[in-house]
């Protein structure tokens, strides 16, 4: 197991330390000068690689996998039928769905014949893999663009149905729904 | 395939079963002869399986039993767990020949009565941790291993978690903190 002995062969310039260190210092100085002048630019986003978070935010992908939302169709009806496919596929077992039949007189609220009475997502367990979105036969659940997921209490991390619908309304208001779904299945949305 | 033929010839008398699937040749030998077989496979110039990729343990107690269950699923009859015909545990050696760029899977069955098998750390040092892991997860002891301790689980842990009868959620073990 004797370790191989490695011979060190340095060229003269390498062996006197200072030459390469000076070269490196020139390089760091170039970066410094560039950023030094950049930091005097107006606005929060001065140095190109850093985002000054609360003031300026980076553009995130339209298909980002963030906080979930329950979708409505263009008439404002809930799409979810409460089939529980998402709960079944979820690797983290974070979704609980309770199905109920749509009562008389409530047909205008729901798109299907059944709906979910309760829908709960445990954010503490969710791993944001996006399988629920992929498996949903009605495209009723989507991972939205919300990425500020810190909460003060455990209870707040349980996303109930209200919260999920609120997320949808927020996304719709800010025009942050996923583009491909809008084009493929709901061409009427374009008119809005 | 050449490897299959050569290996069959070399290990004549040791082989219990040989099969081929997805370009993988799987040779099954008796657990008592495992060290001999692997030594032959490593040192023979024609095949020279000189690289140990991994050592895997498998608990076969429920292998292919589930199908029967599914069929019986409708009938609520309490089924007695069928004792598998073969020994319960399996140690799988994944070998690679760098010279010939060929792979080989060698298996040995270990029964519940005698949970020991010879170590191959004398052939490949690489077998050190994988064998410890198999011991950790299944309780199969490797004779002659230089350092037979638990690897991933802590030392005071009693059970063997990858056995099929160990529940997924665990049995509620807690690690007692011992300060020096």
């Amino acid at each position, binding site marked *: 197991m004797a370790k191989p*002995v490695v011979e060190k062969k340095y060229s003269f310039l390498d062996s006197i330390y200072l030459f390469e260190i000076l070269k490196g210092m020139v390089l760091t100085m170039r970066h410094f000068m560039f950023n030094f002048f950049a930091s005097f630019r107006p606005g929060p986003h001065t140095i190109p690689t850093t985002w000054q978070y609360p003031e300026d935010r980076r553009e995130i992908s339209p298909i980002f996998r963030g906080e979930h939302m329950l979708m409505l169709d263009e008439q404002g009806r809930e799409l979810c039928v409460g089939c529980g496919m998402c709960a079944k596929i979820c690797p983290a077992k974070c979704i609980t769905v309770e199905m109920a039949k749509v009562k008389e007189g409530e047909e205008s609220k729901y798109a299907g014949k059944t709906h979910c009475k309760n829908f709960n997502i445990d954010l503490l367990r969710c791993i944001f893999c*996006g399988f629920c979105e992929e498996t949903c036969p009605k495209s009723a659940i989507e991972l939205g663009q919300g990425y500020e997921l810190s909460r003060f209490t455990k209870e707040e991390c349980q996303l109930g149905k209200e919260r999920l619908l609120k997320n949808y309304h927020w996304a719709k208001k800010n025009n942050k729904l996923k583009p491909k779904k809008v084009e493929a299945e709901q061409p009427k949305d374009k008119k809005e | 395939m050449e490897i299959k033929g050569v290996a069959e010839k070399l290990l004549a008398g040791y082989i219990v079963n040989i099969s081929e699937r997805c370009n993988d040749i799987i040779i099954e030998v008796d657990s008592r002869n495992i060290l001999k077989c692997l030594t032959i496979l490593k040192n023979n110039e024609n095949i020279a399986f*000189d690289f140990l*990729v991994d050592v*895997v343990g*498998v608990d076969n107690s429920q292998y292919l039993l589930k199908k029967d269950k599914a069929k019986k699923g409708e009938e609520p009859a309490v089924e007695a767990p069928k004792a598998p015909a073969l020994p319960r545990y399996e140690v*799988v050696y994944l070998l690679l020949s760098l010279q010939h760029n060929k792979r080989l899977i060698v298996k040995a069955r270990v029964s519940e009565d005698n949970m020991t098998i010879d170590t191959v750390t004398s052939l490949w040092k*690489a077998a050190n941790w994988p064998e410890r892991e198999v011991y950790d997860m299944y309780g199969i002891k490797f004779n002659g291993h230089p350092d037979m301790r638990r690897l*991933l689980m802590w030392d005071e842990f009693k059970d063997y978690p990858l056995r099929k009868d160990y529940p997924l959620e665990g049995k509620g073990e807690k690690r007692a903190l011992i300060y020096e």
Partner: protein
Amino acid sequence: MNNINLDEYIKVNIGPSHPAMHGTLRVIAWTDGETVMHCDPEIGYLHRGVEKLGESFTYHQFIPLTDRMNYCSAINSNVAYEAAVEKLMGVEIPLKAQLIRTIMCELARIADHQVCVGILGVDLGAFTPFFYLIIQREEIYEIFEWYNGARLTNTFGRIGGVENDLPADFDARWKELKPNLFKSIDETDKLLTHNRIWMDRTIGVSAFSPEDALNWGFTGPCLRACGVKRDLRKDEPYYQYANFKFDVPVGKNGDVFDRYMIRMQEMHESIKIIDQAYEMYKQLPPDAPLMAKVPKIIKPPVGEVYSSHETPNGELGFYIKSDGTDKPYRIKVRPPCYMIYQAFPELVQGEMIADLVACLSSLNVIAGELDR
């Protein structure tokens, strides 16, 4: 190691929470002054029972777990696992999916090497190259994010293909990223490679002979640094790697410097591969299939299979035993750094504490992959 009396030495506990430990690793070192006489790596602090969990998951549900093994290059783990299941099922994925997988894998490889080289610099006291590299890694992550919506734990690909086509702006992004990548690698090279301090710290440190390396089961950059030319992309070519022109960099001494140089060169090779794969991709029709025909619920035939891919750390293999149901009977992961890390006591024996840290970083041991 057996004939020295460990009680004579200072016992230094390094980790599991120590600034130089990559994740929760722990090394107990017995030192004579600064020289490490013997050390005992203790693992299992990040053991999450992935293999046990996998037995209760369906084949698809296991993909997110592979994300969390090597979190620096999750895509490589995803693809290696999917390939193993595809091999078990006997499915050949369409060409377009192969090319997308190749492009994404190589991008992830670059990202992984950037982290490894950067962290090696940080551990040896050179902070600046880390930032030059990591800034470009962000751009790579941006490509991932635009591809399927996640940056780090990608859950990339599905069994039988990939889920999305490359995003429309991939072309523009890659054109912008490529010169920046070259520049950042070049700057790191300028700051470190010929610096005498860096050379003194790395050349000859924890050198390893090729025989030992093979005996210990080394794979990947650490094996190539020892002078063994083995790369699964060349030797057991999968996907379209046989059609790409790229070199496999090989070192000589197997020391920290060689591992560092190999990683630096592999980044260049990966850029070459991406270029070729993307050229090939552009010639395909836009409506070419992304998924092979696989059933919705995956039930591979009874049997067992071992399949491995070349990930940034080395050979990542999956041994899958199927009993014909929708859940794997047994999944065994063969993490590359598991095999490399077990040789750690031999690698660092007789070196100094500072070299222990350098050696550990150059091996790129990732706790998530190590403990599973």
